[in-house]
């Protein structure tokens, strides 16, 4: 698995190491880092609707870096990022998944509410 730093969590709340420490404690999970993991996924609220081309280019970059790691699951902790990255993965790379960190930690590997 790998973890995407959501903008709000990282830059407003200063949450960066905590999720990774939690993941490191999960038995059987191999956590890998990926390039530009702290970059925005391109959702940005109404930005995604106002500038869909730019938004898609940004999420494409994000997903390309994720795919380069070979990880199966991309974990996020922000619903907007999950919507954006999860939607893109479902359309373009259905064999890969984006999940909420809480779902993963709870053992809900389907990632469903």
């Amino acid at each position, binding site marked *: 698995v790998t973890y995407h730093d959501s903008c709000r969590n990282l830059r407003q709340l200063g949450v960066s190491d905590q999720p990774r420490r939690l993941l490191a404690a999960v038995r059987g999970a191999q956590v890998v880092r990926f390039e530009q993991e702290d*970059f*925005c996924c391109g959702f940005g*609220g109404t930005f995604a609707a106002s*500038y869909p081309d*730019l938004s898609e280019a940004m999420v494409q*970059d994000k997903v390309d870096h994720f795919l380069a790691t070979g990880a199966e699951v991309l974990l996020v902790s922000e619903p907007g990022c999950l919507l954006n990255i999860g939607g893109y993965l479902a359309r373009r790379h259905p064999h890969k998944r984006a999940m909420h960190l809480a779902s993963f930690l709870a053992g809900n590997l389907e990632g469903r509410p």
Partner: protein
Amino acid sequence: MRIRTEPFDQLATEEIEKAKARPFLKMVPEFLYRKRAEGMAGMADPAAAQALMPLLFGLGRTRDLYRACTLCGACASVCPAGIDHPKLFLAYRAKDVAGDPRFRSRPRPLGERLAFRVWSLGDRPGGRLSRRPHRALRAARM
């Protein structure tokens, strides 16, 4: 969330002074930055210009400069001059939505303003629509 706009002039002045102080290190994807930098070709410091242009040429003409931004805060986190671009862009957006002739901006279309007004009702703490999201959706569709 209601955006406070009263200290806008003071905020803008502060940010402009910071922008003039020194160029800032960009951490914005290049293609996104290019989109915002369209129309600013030839300017010595596009980063500073980005903050200044809406004030110089009006919010209506420079809408992409402050709207083509996810407000992720990456630029602010590395800005050596301490410019808080997301804060400034939010202030520009609030002015633009309200429509302020001093900033050469017209109010947004009535339908859009109504839709977001309904949305804002649900955003109030304990608001009726916040407890019943399906009603907010229904109202927004009307």
